[in-house]
């Protein structure tokens, strides 16, 4: 069985920079209840893909900028190795992802 991923999000930060949007406002735009947004921010609920995209659309950012893996994104597949070298970014297993790495990880996941 696949390992459970610990998914984190930047929703609170994104709300703050979106003219201090409230949880209720975000909930209405995403079509869910305020309690669901609260649960997502607190890490108590993993949204569906559709809801994740709807939340990303509210902030007009890619989904990778809203949600991320706390641990690594997993071993880099062979196909992706060339791409990482081309981009000059080395996705290491230090357990931390910088913004560049996170964005590239998201792109690689989409390609894969």
């Amino acid at each position, binding site marked *: 069985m696949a390992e459970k991923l610990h998914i984190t999000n930047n929703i609170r930060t994104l709300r703050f920079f979106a003219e201090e949007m409230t949880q209720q406002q975000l909930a209405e735009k995403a079509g*869910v209840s305020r309690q669901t947004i609260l649960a997502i921010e607190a890490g108590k609920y993993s949204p569906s893909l559709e809801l994740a995209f709807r939340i990303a659309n509210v902030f007009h950012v890619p989904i990778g900028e809203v949600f991320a893996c706390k641990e690594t994104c997993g071993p880099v597949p062979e196909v992706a190795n060339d791409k990482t070298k081309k981009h000059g970014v080395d996705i290491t297993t230090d357990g931390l992802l910088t913004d560049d790495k996170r964005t590239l990880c998201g792109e690689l996941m989409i390609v894969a």
Partner: protein
Amino acid sequence: MDYQQKKSIVSIVESVAVVAVYCIYVLGKLRQGAVSMEDTRFFAVTMLTFIGIGIAFTIAIQVVFHVLLSVSIAVREREKESKEIEHAINAAMVEDERDKIIDLKSTRIPYMAAMLGFVAGLVMLALQYPVAVMLNILFIASGLGAVGEGVAKLLYYKAGVRNG
């Protein structure tokens, strides 16, 4: 505590009340000697009556609960226009994907309780107890299953749930 959690608590109280009143009524009748365990018809009629009472009670409680919640929101938002108040009421009672997932996960409890009750009833019949014993076990197991469902919902809302 949000609308769905309050609804779960109300559901737990309803289930406990129906099962408790049924047990008190039936045990009272048995102690008085007005009925025996061989009188299957009495138990069937009583259970059907309590099922009907339970359904009517559920509907009435949910309506009252809905009205009270709407009134409380309307009082809280009284400065705003009626459309905004209506919007706030609808927003408070929305059932989204998280509620549906919790609902689905919690629904397993009453199914398991009913199955366990059925098996326990069969065991009682195999041990040559009256049929009324099996009926009572099934009825009480269903009631306890409903209580378990409400408790499971509250736990999921508290602890969180994963999608998938």
